[in-house]
C-alpha cells in the first residue's frame, strides 16, 4: 500500500508520532501539541483533494503542522518583550565572570541528555519559542522577529538569555 492510500483514520497511527514529536520540540506542552496534531490531521483531511502527491504525505502534513505552530506562536507571543539593557546578574558576577562554570568537555557529563527536555519545558514561553524557532526550524532572525512581532535586536538578546538560562538549568537544576 502506498502512503497516499493510507485511510485517514489510520493517519494518527502512521504519522501521529512524527507530528507530535515535531510539535513537542517546538512548543513543549503535551496538551497543546496533541490538539495541534489533531487540527493538523483534520485540516489534512479537509485539504486532501489538493494533495498532488509530489511529496510524501508525511512531509505535506508537517507543512500543515508548521503553519499551525507559527499561528500558535503568533497568538501566544504578545507578551514577548525584553529590555535592551537586560540584567545579567543572574548569570555573571560583578567582574563579568560566570556565576556557574562548566568547563569544556563537561557539558555532556552534567546530564545534557536527560536535563535538556526538562529545562526546555521549564523555560518561559518568551525564551523557549524564539529559541526553538532558531535552533530547530533554523529560521533567520528576521523571519523569527516577523513571526513574533518583535525587533531583531531584541530577538538576539532573548536568544542569548535563553541559552544562559538553559546552561544554568542544565548545570545546576536552576530553571
Amino acid at each position, binding site marked *: 500500500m502506498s502512503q497516499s492510500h493510507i485511510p485517514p483514520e489510520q*493517519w494518527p497511527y502512521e504519522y501521529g508520532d512524527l507530528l507530535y514529536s515535531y510539535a513537542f520540540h517546538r512548543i513543549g506542552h503535551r496538551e497543546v501539541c496533541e490538539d495541534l496534531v489533531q487540527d493538523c490531521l483534520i485540516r489534512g483531511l479537509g485539504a486532501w483533494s489538493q494533495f498532488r502527491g509530489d511529496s510524501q504525505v508525511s512531509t505535506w502534513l508537517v507543512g500543515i503542522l508548521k503553519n499551525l505552530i507559527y499561528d500558535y506562536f503568533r497568538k501566544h507571543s504578545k507578551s514577548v518583550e525584553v529590555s535592551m539593557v537586560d540584567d545579567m546578574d543572574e*548569570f555573571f558576577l560583578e567582574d*563579568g565572570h560566570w556565576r556557574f562554570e562548566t568547563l569544556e568537555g563537561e557539558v555532556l557529563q552534567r546530564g545534557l541528555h536527560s536535563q*535538556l527536555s526538562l529545562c526546555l519545558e521549564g523555560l518561559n514561553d518568551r525564551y523557549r519559542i524564539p529559541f526553538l524557532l532558531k535552533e*530547530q526550524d533554523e529560521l533567520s532572525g528576521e523571519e523569527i522577529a516577523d513571526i513574533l512581532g518583535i525587533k531583531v535586536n531584541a530577538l538576539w538578546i532573548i536568544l542569548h538569555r535563553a541559552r544562559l538560562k*538553559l*546552561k544554568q538549568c542544565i548545570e545546576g537544576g536552576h530553571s
Partner: protein
Amino acid sequence: MKCSEASWNMSQLHDGVKLDSKVESELNAHLKVCPPCRGFQESLGQISDQLQAHSKTLSDSVKDRISQQLAQRDLDQ
C-alpha cells in the same frame, strides 16, 4: 574581554551575526585562556544537536480519539 561579553559575542556568532573583526579577535584571544567560556561555546553546538535527536510519542488514547474524528469526518465528506 569579560566572560559576559564573550558569551554574548558567542551567541551572536551562533545566530549568524557577523562580528566586528576586532571584537572577533578579542573573543578568540579570550577563548584561548578561558575554559568556562569554551564550555559555553561547546554547549551551544551540543544543545542544537540534542534538540534534533529527541523523539516523542503520541499516546494511543489520543491516536484513537483523533482516528475516530477523522473517520467520522471522512464519512461526512
